[in-house]
């Protein structure tokens, strides 16, 4: 518990508090009046309202579209499932800027739909909503589908035998068991879309702006730190509220589940309805997730003289990209991989320890259900771990710059600064993925191990770890992916000679010229391929089953 707490205090609370303080303090005096001034601005009110409703709409739409997908991935067996599972996760790890560009290329002016039918969505909110679904489809499929696949189908069969119809059995047995996972997924989607930055910046134009975009504009464009600080605080409080609500709903529903091997619950679809569901899901994935990616790849090869690898070759030299880069853009790939790996390790250690600490008190509490003080403290910690998802990444990055620059914490020139910031975003994923599974482990198994002489640490290693190995791998995949795609904070702290892929993409997009745009598309394609490759490797690693332990 001490390690995660120290980590968050040092690399999260301190920078954020420092930058908020800088914005709200004037000559050592807190200027709380600025809240009133900012909040009475009709533009700010408009931004607030839009942020909330587009996040709610995006969350609802994502759940509606992705829940059938979660079912298909959990319960059906079909050729190419592994590959498709990895493909589905790709959009999630793409830099927001690239997703914005891909949708612009699809539904914007001169985009694919415009060319074909003259349909344009870039002036409507639909482009933003669809991009958000594109982004977060994997969150729902992974979080909900992962658990769904491990639910014992016989529970539902028991309900059927007791006279429940197919839908009633699902609603009364499966849905409550999935509740925490659905809530967790919905919460994540809401947070991501609530703090959406790149997508809205590109597709929203001047009409639509979220809080995060506004914070960035105030910080980077107008250098209006006070307004940015107030907006950061508002976002912070709103996120805290959402998280508290979530913790409250989840707590009353989490229960020990019967988990079985996911491979045993999946089978080939039977009957017209199931086939239709499978094909429908495949169609949705194709139209919503694959087409934008294909357009992206197509752009990366569409050189000035017809299709070719022109842009890719240009990536290899620093000179071709004029003065933007001190190094060849391709070096960003190696930087990203190294940073991502380091960030994943940090996130797994911090998140794993935190998740373990969050489940330990149940063991200590026993059947009497006492020790309310400790458990209340732990619940608070639970929420704290989620905060980095909701706090403006822009603020965190800027905060890193102004706080971690003096001894003993002079990390400005340290290689570890970037992985630390990226791990901050990865930890919530690790905790959220592992907690439901850890909590579902029967406490008496831990007691059995303790009686046989296992120390608490050994109990975790011998009982919990083997059961959560799969969840751990998924968590590692997510942490690695978000580290690769992290943009808001990294853009502030990455050194010019060590850019990450998303930072390089953004720099290229920011410069005029077909070569730069093409190179951006090419780099995005590489990023996409790297992420897909990493996720595919993770998919292949299966938990060692019964006989292989020693």
């Amino acid at each position, binding site marked *: 518990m001490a390690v995660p707490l120290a980590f968050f205090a040092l690399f999260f609370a301190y920078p954020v508090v420092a930058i908020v303080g800088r914005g709200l303090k004037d000559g050592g005096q807190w200027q709380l009046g600025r809240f009133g001034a900012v909040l009475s601005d009709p533009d700010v009110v408009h931004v607030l309202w839009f942020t909330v409703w587009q996040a709610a709409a995006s969350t609802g739409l994502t759940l509606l579209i992705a829940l059938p997908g979660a079912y298909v991935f959990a319960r059906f067996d079909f050729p190419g499932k592994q590959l498709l599972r990895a493909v589905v996760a790709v959009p999630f790890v793409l830099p927001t800027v690239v997703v914005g560009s891909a949708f612009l290329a699809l539904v914007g002016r001169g985009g694919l739909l415009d060319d074909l039918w003259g349909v344009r969505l870039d002036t409507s909110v639909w482009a933003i909503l669809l991009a958000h679904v594109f982004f977060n489809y994997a969150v729902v499929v992974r979080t909900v589908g992962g658990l769904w696949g491990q639910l014992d189908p016989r529970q539902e069969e028991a309900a059927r035998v007791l006279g429940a119809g197919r839908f009633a059995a699902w609603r009364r047995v499966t849905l409550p068991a999935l509740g925490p996972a659905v809530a967790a997924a919905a919460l994540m989607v809401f947070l991501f879309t609530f703090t959406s930055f790149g997508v809205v910046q590109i597709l929203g134009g001047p009409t639509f702006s979220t809080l995060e975009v506004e914070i960035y504009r105030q910080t980077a464009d107008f250098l209006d730190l006070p307004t940015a600080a107030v907006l950061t605080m508002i976002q912070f409080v709103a996120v805290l509220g959402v998280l508290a609500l979530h913790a409250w709903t989840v707590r009353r529903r989490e229960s020990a589940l019967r988990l079985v091997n996911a491979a045993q619950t999946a089978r080939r679809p039977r009957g017209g309805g199931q086939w239709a569901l499978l094909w429908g899901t495949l169609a949705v994935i194709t139209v919503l997730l694959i087409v934008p990616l294909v357009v992206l790849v197509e752009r990366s090869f569409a050189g000035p003289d017809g299709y070719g690898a022109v842009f890719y070759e240009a990536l290899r030299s620093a000179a071709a990209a004029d003065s933007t880069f001190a190094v060849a853009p391709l070096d960003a790939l190696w930087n990203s991989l190294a940073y991502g790996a380091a960030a994943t390790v940090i996130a797994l250690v911090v998140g794993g320890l935190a998740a373990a600490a969050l489940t330990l008190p149940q063991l200590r509490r026993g059947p009497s259900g006492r020790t309310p003080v400790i458990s209340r403290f732990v619940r608070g910690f639970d929420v704290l771990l989620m905060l980095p998802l909701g706090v403006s990444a822009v603020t965190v990055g800027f905060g890193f710059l102004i706080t971690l620059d003096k001894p003993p914490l002079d990390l400005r020139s340290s290689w570890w600064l970037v992985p630390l910031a990226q791990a901050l975003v990865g930890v919530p994923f690790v905790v959220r993925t592992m907690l439901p599974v850890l909590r579902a482990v029967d406490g008496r198994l831990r007691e*059995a191990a303790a009686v046989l*002489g296992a120390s608490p640490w050994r109990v975790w290693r011998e009982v919990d770890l*083997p059961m959560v190995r799969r969840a751990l791998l998924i968590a590692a995949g997510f942490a690695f992916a978000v580290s690769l795609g992290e943009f808001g904070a990294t853009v502030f702290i990455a050194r010019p000679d060590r850019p990450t892929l998303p930072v390089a993409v953004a720099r290229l997009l920011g410069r005029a010229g077909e070569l730069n745009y093409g190179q951006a598309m090419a780099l995005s394609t590489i990023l996409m391929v790297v992420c897909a490759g990493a996720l595919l490797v993770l998919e292949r690693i299966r938990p060692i089953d019964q006989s292989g332990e020693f």
Partner: protein
Amino acid sequence: MTARADTTAQELLRLGGVTVRFGASGRPALDVVDLDVTAHEIVCVLGPSGSGKSTLLRVVAGLQQADAGQVLLEGRDQSGVPTHRRGVGLMFQDHQLFPQRDVAGNVAFGLRMRRSSRADQERTVAELLDLVGLPGAQRRAVASLSGGEQQRVALARALAPRPRLLMLDEPLGQLDRGLRERLVVELRRLFHELGTTVLAVTHDQGEAFALADRVVVMQDGKIAQTGTPLEVWQRPATEFVARFLGFDNVVEATVQGDAAVTPWGKVPVPYGTLDGPCRLLVRPASVRLTPVPEGLPCTVAARTFRGTHVALLLQPTGGPQVEAACALRDAPEVGQRVGIAFAARDVVVLDAAA
């Protein structure tokens, strides 16, 4: 195991005034419990569900903190000693085998925790699997085992680290009857062979009597009676114990000389019983059927075939119903009128306090 021969006289486990409360109010799950277990002894705690037996085991294992009282193992106070350092074994009611490990992985778990060598582990696992009647099962998956086999693996797992005290929570609860009866005999032989000290809890008197050297009956978190199976069976100390053992012929009585006055008339009592009011247990075996005019007249209310005998429920003209046992050949039909008389041999005077 032989090294402990010189300490046989000493208590291996001593509980002194152990009290556990769940929640602030309500009666305690364990209420000032004192219990000693001598080395190599098999003690069975018998009681209905909710009487605190499982809590007792959890306290000894260190899985449950006692609110008051002491747990001593080999004379040493265990407060502050975490579960994994207590050197006790606990076999859970539903086994709690580790699903991701095979049979050998489960049995060897405790040995790995004490860092035994690989060769040692393999040898011990093979020996124990032989012992519990599952030779060669090392590589089998836990999920492929039947209930009885899981039971044996759980037992082998608990025995493997040679715990100084082995605790069993409803060891045979989930098994079918035939297997149960066979296993009880096997277990008793095994524990005596190994010299294992055992503290078991069960709600099944048959299991307790067959397994234990000494039986401890619990009621509402308190110990109601301690004794050998024969003592407890022959002389239940309280009405609760008598009724828990299945005897329902308990009535108010006043002893005068060699007989007691009861709602059923005069019932002879054993020689030397003190005069005064008490509760009286009349075993079904001591109820003798007579022709109607010679005894207490009754109507047969129900008869149940029990294999070796027939249990009769008789309604006297006055007083509560009487249970009687008789041979199948002599059993009257329901509704028939019979007379009954009582023999002093199987009449027990219960604690007046209860």
